[in-house]
């Protein structure tokens, strides 16, 4: 346990640590571009220079701790060299922040304001390079903005292992380039390089020029795409920046999804499916209760559902594995005795989707199978003779498999043809409209928060279950 001193503070460090790691752990901020806690050290940006007494300047990311070393992270000499390094890094940077998607969350922009603030000292014209280079069907590359920190190439070599990126040529004409034999479009984790890019060189096609990031706010959520349950941030428009003139739906759109760093589940990464949650959640919604396809009020639909439940002799429930822990527990508590319950797989693997790997992606494409099975068992849905009522909660079940004469109560969020076939259809809210928790395949519980308001005709499943369990009106 070597004792080192950072800015005069004595710190007990571990032998295998670098000065960068120790400084971060103890709240001494050192700026950096190329270093990343999950990637190997290359030390090419030189931004994390610190002064070590008796040794002069060196980079903190690649400096092992040694007993008694005196490190200064913000001495006058360090400040002067940082300024020089920023001058060098921005030498050929176009400084087109006004039209750059990264502006507002760009590390280079922040550091420039914090540590440099100078104009370019160069008299030479900036080196021109490719703009909007097509890296894959999801990602564009702006080589002029790139500062060659090599985080993206290291990510594809060390984390996603697709080996899809490399550097061509050298000096001020070197460029990040993909290679034909390992297309980046086949890397299901490719979009992480957009997040780890410290500048605006890697751009998401989906998010390109869609919104300035300061108009958006993130809501912590959980990706329902598979049993891993990665924690994510769902970005949506801030209420104070609500659009008044344009289509109101734009205020309730998912602008983008980014990972929420969580060492217990996903670390700082998520897969591309998690980025595309908007496609899942922004399908056309069902917002009116129906009786056999005829729109009715919520109380009328609830009454009819309660009447069916009261009259049924052998009711069966297919419980959604997209329900939150709270909803599933409420169902078990309130209706577990009434229904014979089975867990239903709401979502199946889509064609072309990666089945499973050793990084994040799991074979079970539903978020809460673990808790649902704990409560309702492992048996596959099975309708014994005499089943006269089926409550189907959630999508993904073929109605042709239901017993022909049984009544159907259907709880679903999206506009689907089955909705009209049910005796009672009740629209329920989706994950972006409610609080809850999911239990992932390892038993880790993660919480999600609401980002949007639900429509008045739509019910939260938890309230709906309680209402169904309440005695029917007029029949105490």
């Amino acid at each position, binding site marked *: 346990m070597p004792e080192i001193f950072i800015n005069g503070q004595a710190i007990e460090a571990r032998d295998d640590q670098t000065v960068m790691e120790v400084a971060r752990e103890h709240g001494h901020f050192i700026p950096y571009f190329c270093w990343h806690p999950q990637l190997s050290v290359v030390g090419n940006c030189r931004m994390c220079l610190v002064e070590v007494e008796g040794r002069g300047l060196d980079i903190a990311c690649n400096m092992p701790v040694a007993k008694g070393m005196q490190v200064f992270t913000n001495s006058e000499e360090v400040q002067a060299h940082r300024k020089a390094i920023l001058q060098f890094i921005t030498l050929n940077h176009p400084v087109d922040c006004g039209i750059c998607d990264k502006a507002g969350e760009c590390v280079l922009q922040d550091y420039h304001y914090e540590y440099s603030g100078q104009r370019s000292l160069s008299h030479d014209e900036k080196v021109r390079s490719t703009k909007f280079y097509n890296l894959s069907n999801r990602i564009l590359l702006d080589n002029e903005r790139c500062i060659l920190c090599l985080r993206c190439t290291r990510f594809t070599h060390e984390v996603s292992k697709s*080996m*899809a*990126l*490399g*550097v*061509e*040529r*050298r000096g001020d004409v070197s460029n990040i*380039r*993909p*290679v*034909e*034999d*390992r297309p980046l479009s086949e890397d299901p984790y490719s979009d992480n390089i957009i997040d780890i890019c410290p500048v605006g060189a890697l751009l998401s096609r989906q998010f390109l020029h869609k919104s300035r990031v300061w108009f958006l706010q993130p809501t912590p959520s959980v990706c329902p795409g598979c049993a891993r349950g990665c924690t994510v941030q769902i970005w949506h428009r801030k209420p104070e920046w609500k659009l008044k003139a344009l289509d109101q739906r734009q205020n309730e759109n998912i602008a983008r999804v980014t990972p929420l760093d969580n060492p217990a589940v996903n670390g700082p990464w998520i897969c591309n499916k998690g980025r595309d949650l908007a496609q899942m959640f922004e399908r056309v919604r069902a917002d009116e209760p129906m009786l056999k396809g005829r729109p009715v009020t919520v109380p009328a639909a609830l009454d009819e559902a309660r009447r069916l439940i009261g009259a049924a002799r052998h009711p069966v429930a297919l419980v959604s594995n997209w329900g939150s822990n709270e909803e599933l527990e409420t169902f078990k508590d309130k209706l577990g005795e009434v229904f014979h319950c089975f867990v239903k797989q709401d979502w199946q693997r889509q064609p072309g989707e990666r089945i499973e790997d050793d990084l994040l992606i799991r074979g079970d494409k539903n978020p809460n199978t673990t808790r649902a099975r704990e409560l309702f068992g492992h048996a596959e849905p099975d309708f014994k003779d005499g089943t006269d009522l089926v409550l189907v909660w959630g999508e993904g079940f073929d109605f042709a498999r239901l017993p022909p004469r049984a009544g159907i109560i259907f709880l679903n969020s999206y506009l689907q043809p089955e909705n009209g076939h049910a005796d009672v259809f009740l629209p329920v809210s989706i994950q972006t409209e409610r609080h809850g928790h999911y239990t992932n395949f390892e038993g880790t519980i993660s919480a999600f928060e609401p980002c949007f308001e639900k429509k008045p005709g739509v019910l939260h499943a938890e309230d709906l279950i309680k209402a169904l369990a309440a005695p029917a009106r007029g029949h105490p």
Partner: protein
Amino acid sequence: MKHLVPEFEKLRERFPAGFESSLALPCLRRIQEDRGYVADSDIEELAVFLGVPQIQIEEVLSFYTQFRRKPIGRWHLQFCHNVSCSMNGAENVLAHVERRLGIKPGQTTPDGRYTLSTVECLGSCGTAPMMMVNDGYHENLTLAKLDELLQGLK
């Protein structure tokens, strides 16, 4: 490249296991020596042989300006235009050769005999100006010496 594989296997023994990508450089040098340049098919075959992605081969190739992706002339004239040579008249001798051969640096004569390049320091500052013709050094260049030399290169 196929016929060089036994040589490459020998080279491989000199590297620790797991460092296959480090073999790219010596293998590429040998390929260029053999063929005169590195063809696209060489890159593909070498990537398969070393078990590394093609981008790692391309990175090495594009980093070192000494690697060539296209065939060059029989005589490769490489003029140093770094400080010492420039101060001793490298521009004059280069201009003279450009006139005589009718090509600019980076070009090859239509008959495929000469390729002209300018390069950085070749470590012979004491005898500037100088150039390399294929693998040989020619130092203390003068216009007369150049004329004589070019006569001999057929």
